[in-house]
């Protein structure tokens, strides 16, 4: 555990090595996120409510998304590179270390630009999410579940490279889960909604946590927590099973 903490700490310091660049990139992402808020404000300026969602709820959804995506893509940014590392034989450097390979990979790299999301999400919730103790607690619960689901799903998708030898499926899965999570699930058709609850768990990444903040339901909260545990477990199992198939690329890498 100590080794992993130190690994992540060094990744964080590496990201912050150039202070002005760090803050510039954080600011860029904050501006990027603000543009989405502007989009939704314009959208709901034309329609008050769509299928039960209004601007306030979408802001909470976006706060959950940016916080959890920032935690996963910013602080565990190698999660996006698992497929690439596997297909290029780039895991060799990790396998010789006396630490769990997946944990090491996830803690090894910090992507500065997504750290902006980690700042933006909670700030957005604090300013526009009508926080009170209950809503804040549910928001934190939702973010934790969303982070586990997102991370687990990306590990599963990255691990497909062990089987396929290619990274394309991981890439597509990454874009799909983030994109579908960016919109309320109820805006999609019935078939797509089933897909987003059962196959790509995008509904549980944002829509369900955002709805819980508005109207807490113990049943949905338990379901979300269960999905988080299952998807995270699937990620670990897929990576562990995949490692058994892994053949070295005979190349030293920067994993």
């Amino acid at each position, binding site marked *: 555990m100590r080794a992993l903490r130190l690994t992540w700490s060094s990744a964080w310091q590496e990201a912050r090595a150039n202070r002005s660049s760090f803050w510039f990139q954080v600011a860029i992402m904050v*501006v990027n996120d603000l543009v989405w808020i502007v989009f939704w404000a314009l959208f709901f300026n034309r329609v008050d409510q769509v299928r039960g969602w209004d601007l306030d709820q979408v802001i909470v959804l976006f706060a959950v998304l940016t916080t959890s995506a920032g935690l996963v893509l910013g602080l565990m940014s190698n999660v996006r590179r698992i497929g690439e590392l596997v297909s290029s034989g780039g895991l060799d450097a990790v396998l010789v270390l006396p630490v769990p390979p997946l944990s090491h990979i996830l803690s090894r790299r910090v992507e500065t630009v997504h750290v902006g999301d980690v700042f933006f999400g909670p700030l957005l919730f604090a300013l526009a999410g009508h926080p009170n103790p209950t809503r804040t607690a549910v928001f934190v619960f939702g973010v934790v579940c969303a982070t586990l689901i997102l991370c687990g799903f990306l590990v599963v998708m990255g691990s497909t490279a062990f089987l396929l030898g290619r990274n394309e499926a991981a890439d597509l899965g990454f874009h799909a889960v983030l994109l579908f999570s960016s919109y309320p699930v109820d805006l999609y058709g019935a078939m797509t909604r089933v897909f987003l609850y059962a196959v790509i768990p995008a509904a549980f990444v944002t829509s369900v946590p955002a709805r819980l903040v508005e109207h807490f339901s113990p049943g949905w909260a338990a379901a979300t927590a269960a999905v988080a545990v299952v998807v995270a477990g699937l990620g670990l199992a897929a990576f562990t099973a995949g490692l058994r198939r892994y053949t070295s690329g005979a190349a030293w890498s920067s994993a």
Partner: protein
Amino acid sequence: MSTARPGGRIGSALGIPLRAARLAMDGVRAEPAGLVVAAGFYLVVALALSGVWRSAAEASGGSIVGYSTTALVWYIATSEAAVMSLPFRLIDDIGVDIGSGRFASEMLRPASALAVRVGGELGRLVPRLAAIGATGVALGLLTGGRPPDAAALALALPALLLALATNLLAQHAFAAIAFWVLDARSTWFLYQKLVFVLGGMLLPLEVLPDPVAAVARLLPFSAMAYVPARLASGHFEPELLLVQAFWLVAIGFVAHLVFRAGERHLVVEGS
């Protein structure tokens, strides 16, 4: 590795970019999996966003700011195709190449480095556009129905090509900041968002408040997504092609000037 044939200055100036285009096109065609992913990603994005606007139109009695549900599906299918046929991080890639010194080596060729780069990107664009365009037409027909106006849709094709060429040149002009600013990597996020909102990729410009829409129409970004999407959504407005042609020439000229100035300023830090 290919080499340029000896020839006159004009022959080299045109021949090398054309050759770069052909090589890049062959490279993309040799990797069909990449095309499948690009088309798949486009499908996901266009499905999601058109679903949002369809819901909005349905909630507003069948149309919104003059766009019917069908028109909105064709709008989004086209605006997304206009943006997603180009690589997302082109500005980032160009910046990295300038910063790493790779671009400096390209300046040794007997042709404009900018022209060779644009030629290569155009070559890469052709198969991507074919894959994404076919997916977009299928999406429009299956989820939106027949296009609202066949004549306007016919105009959308040249508009799409002009949009892509304008966007490509604008990204090069924007990326040229890397000649002067060492860490310009994340600026592509900002450029992208300008195209998303002021360019009309996420929403028809008519959705914007009137003063903002008026400003957006004066900016080049609308030529990159809004114009082809507006045409494909059934608005027969051929004058929009002239607006695009103007921006293509203007931005091409700016890109040429900025790259020329950048090349003069270039300091290689080691590669």
